[in-house]
């Protein structure tokens, strides 16, 4: 299913307005979900559920598997996270699973506390666009 980028952005904006109570003018491509739009951990699940509803059609459900959009299922795995930092194996999985996230500046830091800051409005739109093309 092909949807224009503008429609994806419009629907993602609606989801963020609903899930975070954010103002539309603050929902810019570079806005960080946590720092700029006030998202807390449970909001990530809310966003995931609302995106599924928004992009599902009667012909094709849009289901986001755990760990597909956000890396929540990696945090308690000692192969991927040690002493609060992503391991080499963890970074490899992030690169493989999360093409929608810009990890270029994260390799040096790797701190799990910083991972949420990588999720921007653009990364959500990229995720939707990539997933819809599959």
């Amino acid at each position, binding site marked *: 299913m092909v949807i224009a980028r503008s429609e994806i952005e419009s629907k993602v904006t609606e989801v963020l307005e*609903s*899930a975070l109570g954010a103002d539309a003018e603050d929902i810019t491509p570079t806005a960080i979900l946590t720092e700029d739009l006030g998202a807390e*951990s*449970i*909001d*990530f*699940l*809310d966003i*995931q*559920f609302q995106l*599924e509803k928004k992009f599902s059609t009667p012909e094709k459900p849009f289901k986001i598997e*755990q760990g597909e959009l*956000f890396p*929540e*299922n990696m*945090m*308690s795995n000692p192969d991927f*996270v040690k002493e609060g930092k992503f391991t080499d194996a963890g970074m490899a999985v992030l690169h493989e699973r999360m093409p929608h996230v810009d990890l270029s500046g994260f390799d040096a830091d790797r701190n*799990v506390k910083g991972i*949420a800051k990588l999720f921007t409005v653009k990364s959500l739109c990229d995720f939707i666009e990539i997933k819809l093309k599959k």
Partner: protein
Amino acid sequence: MRWMWIDTIVAYEPDRRLVAIKNVSLAEEHLHEHFAAEGDLPAQPVMPASLMIEGMAQTAGILAGSVRRFREKVVLAKIQKAEITADVVPGQCIRYDARIERVDPMGAGTSGTIERLDHRTGAWERIGETEIMFSHVDQNMSGLAFPEHNFVFSDSFRNVLRASGLGHLMD
């Protein structure tokens, strides 16, 4: 001891729906601190709306917990919507009808309707809607650790389930 805001469960459809009842009595002291007056009618004790939301959270929370047989610690994480448009007074009955919208290893999304029964007319009337999210706290994104025993589904919850004929869900 947890303060229960539902009296019994009257319907259960596995993984989909759970319906609970709360009978509102004049003997409940908390009602007397919440008075409402409508038009020329005298003020009278009413069921606080916040406690109706708690009643729905308990109903939907049991439903969310039942999906994984109460192995997860299911905690109220977010109230996305709570609209209550009418008061409930002593002598009336509240019905919480909760439905699962989505379950994920991280948590669950639910929707619910709140109705009241006036025994004089025998009619149920819809007075509210909710959307509530629950988190499975052991699966939290920040990797925080919680006690091993399930402190959420305590004896109070278990007693309601057993009395409602649903004790087998906890086996």
